[in-house]
């Protein structure tokens, strides 16, 4: 069998994810500065880059800052990369929309990862729009090798046209591993900053003369795209349909319709219209396969090229082979192909849960007990508080939104909400990203909001990265550590309205929340226990349930810890005649890390320490 393999030199290649390939390429391209704020599916780009010596990497406090750091580096002539998830570019867009006017010096690449299919995001967005909006070119790799090659090409194109270049990734590029052949490393010595106010100081008088340059650049880029080897026309014998495809969708098209002509867009903006015309001449019908918005489709139509697209393909999610097969059959008037397989089985859903002993568990247990509150939430692991068993988070919009939304809920309320308190819940990293401005707005405008600032010393959601509150930098080395209590005070919260407490002490937390929500002033309750996934976390002696003592009250289940399991259910009729459901439990002692949360609501004291020699294993811990 080995003899029939096409590539015996394969052993020299690397096996990399798209993210790893981008990182490796940036390093090989002589990138000197790389900055990012974590966000799935882009996070590993910076994590990987940080492992290479010889270049500066940082976690920035948010995406806008990271893009500005990259721009500054570019201004002095260094090659720079900035990475983010799709929503990050919304945050960074203010900088982008003007740096496209100044242009860049050292190559500047913006790697932006769209979560097509929404595996872990609050929305689905097509970042290719930014290319049009900001007049910058867009590369769309279709696999890890292309992610490598295009990252390198993007640095070169950025320098050729002196503008930022977007590398548009999707989840199916970032997290797919494939073989990658790296190339020789380049070195780039920054040329130095050239002072030039007309270039870098964007006041109207300086910016206006630069706008025509931007439009000229568009034309030059369009010519490049028409001639670019990244845009390839694959001939085909089955000419009923010719495809225009980019990104991972290209691979799906090639796999599903190997004999059809395909125009593969690699440098997809500016759109190589003439190449598309060439394809259209060869085929009966053109079908544009793009994730997710009909951008190319609309531009082709505007150029007078008839095509199909979102009228037959879904606008949402990935355009995987099965989706394509069905759509194309419909287009050709053929019966829909049916894959032969076992019927889909109905199995309970398994949504993500908070970790065993997560410090957020105590927060939501407590919030769930409070009545008459509206809880404005934010993005992070603590968003899971909206789910079972707590149902104690009422909104989640965008990073930092909990602050402004809470203030708006306070100021906008009428009779219906007059008796309710407004609580905002936000994580440490989210607070520093975009929440602190909102808190300032609350204090300045005298909002009546109680803020729960969950300092778990990590960006938990994305895997426990560092932030300015952890006291470590991207390399895990000691760094200045922000003091949240002082920061809140500086933002205008009265000192006596700031409390720092342990989220594992349920009665203390309950009392503090009750008190603070009654006082009509801004207040902040900071909780200070670490995420269980980081090394600050120390597991202690685990617990077990004495079966004979468990009365089946189910109180401990309300904590929501995944280590607590129901062994038996029953119903009991109370003297009052009321029927109550009972659930008897056990604790998976090998998973329990002894946080003690579930012990507190257990009235019959059925939860006790397991034998000390019982080993704790981190089933839910990152391996």
């Amino acid at each position, binding site marked *: 069998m080995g003899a029939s393999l096409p590539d015996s030199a394969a052993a020299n290649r690397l*096996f990399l994810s798209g993210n790893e390939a981008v990182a490796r390429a940036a390093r090989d391209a002589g990138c000197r500065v790389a900055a990012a704020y974590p966000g799935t599916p882009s996070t590993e780009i910076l994590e990987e880059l940080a492992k290479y010596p010889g270049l500066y990497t940082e976690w920035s406090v948010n995406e806008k800052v990271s893009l500005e750091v990259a721009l500054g580096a570019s201004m002095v002539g260094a090659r720079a990369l900035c990475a983010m998830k799709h929503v990050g570019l919304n945050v960074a867009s203010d900088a982008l929309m003007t740096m496209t006017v100044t242009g860049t010096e050292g190559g500047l690449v913006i790697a932006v990862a769209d979560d097509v299919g929404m595996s872990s995001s609050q929305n689905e967005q097509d970042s290719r729009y930014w290319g049009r909006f900001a007049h910058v070119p867009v590369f769309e790799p279709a696999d890890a090798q292309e992610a490598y090659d295009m990252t390198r090409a993007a640095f070169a194109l950025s320098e050729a046209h002196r503008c930022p270049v977007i590398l548009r990734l999707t989840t199916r590029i970032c997290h797919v*591993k494939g073989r990658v052949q790296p190339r020789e490393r380049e070195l780039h010595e920054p040329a130095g900053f050239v002072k030039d106010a007309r270039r870098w100081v964007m006041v109207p008088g300086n910016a206006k003369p630069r706008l025509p340059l931007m439009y000229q650049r568009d034309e030059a880029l369009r010519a490049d795209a028409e001639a670019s080897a990244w845009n390839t026309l694959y001939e085909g014998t089955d000419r009923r349909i010719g495809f225009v495809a980019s990104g991972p969708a290209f691979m799906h098209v090639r796999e599903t319709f190997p004999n059809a002509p395909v125009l593969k867009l690699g440098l997809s903006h500016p759109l190589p219209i003439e190449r598309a015309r060439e394809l259209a001449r060869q085929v009966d019908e053109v079908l544009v396969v793009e994730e997710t918005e009909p951008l190319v489709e609309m531009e082709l139509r505007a150029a007078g090229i008839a095509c199909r697209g979102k009228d037959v393909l879904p606008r949402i999610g990935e355009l995987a082979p099965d989706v394509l097969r069905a759509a194309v059959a419909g287009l050709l008037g053929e019966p829909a192909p049916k894959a032969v397989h076992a019927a889909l089985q109905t199995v*309970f859903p*398994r949504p*993500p849960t908070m970790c065993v002993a997560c410090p957020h568990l105590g927060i939501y247990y407590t919030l769930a007990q409070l009545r008459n509150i509206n809880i404005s939430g934010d993005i992070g692991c603590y968003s*899971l508080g909206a789910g079972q068993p707590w149902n104690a988070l009422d909104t989640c919009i965008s990073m930092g939104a909990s602050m402004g939304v809470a203030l708006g809920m306070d100021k906008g309320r009428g009779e219906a909400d007059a008796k309710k308190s407004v609580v905002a819940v936000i994580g440490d990293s989210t607070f520093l990203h975009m929440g602190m401005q909102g808190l300032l707005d609350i204090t300045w405008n005298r909002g009546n909001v109680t803020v729960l600032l969950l300092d778990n010393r990590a960006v938990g959601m994305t895997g426990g990265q560092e932030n300015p509150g952890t006291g470590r930098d991207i390399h895990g080395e000691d760094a200045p550590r922000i003091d949240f209590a002082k920061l809140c005070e500086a933002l205008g919260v009265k000192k006596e309205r700031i409390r720092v407490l342990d989220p594992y002490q349920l009665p203390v937390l309950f009392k503090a929340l009750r008190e603070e929500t009654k006082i009509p002033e801004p207040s902040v309750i900071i909780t200070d226990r670490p995420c269980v996934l980081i090394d600050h976390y120390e597991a202690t002696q685990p617990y077990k349930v004495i079966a004979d003592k468990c009365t089946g009250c189910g109180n401990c289940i309300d904590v929501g810890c995944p280590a607590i399991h129901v062994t038996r259910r029953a119903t009991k009729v109370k003297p009052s005649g009321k029927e109550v459901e009972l*659930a008897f439990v056990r604790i998976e002692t090998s998973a329990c890390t002894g946080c003690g949360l579930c012990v507190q609501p257990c009235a019959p004291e059925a939860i006790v320490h397991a034998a000390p020699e019982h080993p704790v294993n981190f089933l839910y811990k990152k391996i």
Partner: protein
Amino acid sequence: MTITNILVCGIGGQGVMTATEILAEAALSLGYDVKKTEVAGMSQRGGVVTSHLRFGPQVLSPQIMPGDADLLVGFEAAEALRWAHMLKPGGAALVNLGRLVPPIVNIGLYDYPDDPIAQLRALGIEVHAFDASAMAQELGNIRLGNTVMLGAIADRLPFPADVLLNAVLARFGVRKPQLVEVNREAFERGRRAVAAAEAPPVAMVG
């Protein structure tokens, strides 16, 4: 074009991705083109994880479509059932009997299936079920479940089992030599668990 499609499923934290990575390394060592993709929405926190592995002379799309998997490797019984429709007719499922019951079931909102294995068999699927979690625990470390599962797959691949074993052991060889022997044992136990069923291997590569 003969491509082997292996779908590995389980829940976040079980080592699904690591196991698939090791399988990928084995295939790579033979010069195959390999693509591996994960669908893991916030998988660190106990959610559903699937890892798709495709290898052959040339692999374009990284995704396995419903009805295309040659092998379904279930690290958790209910998860194997959830993904049963991914198997092609005649494909086999290798399933860990160990159950991980999520809070949503404990709260009482949903039921865990009574017998996921029987349900799989009722679908006409060739199922090999064994308690990899218990075997791992017997060997002293729940994480060895991963290696047990790899052992179970080993005789169903289009290449010799030793290639996979070597890929497993290479992980520890240098950094943690003390783990080599126990992993070898875990691997063999997984192999024996499936061999005991004496089923004919599935023809995967034409």
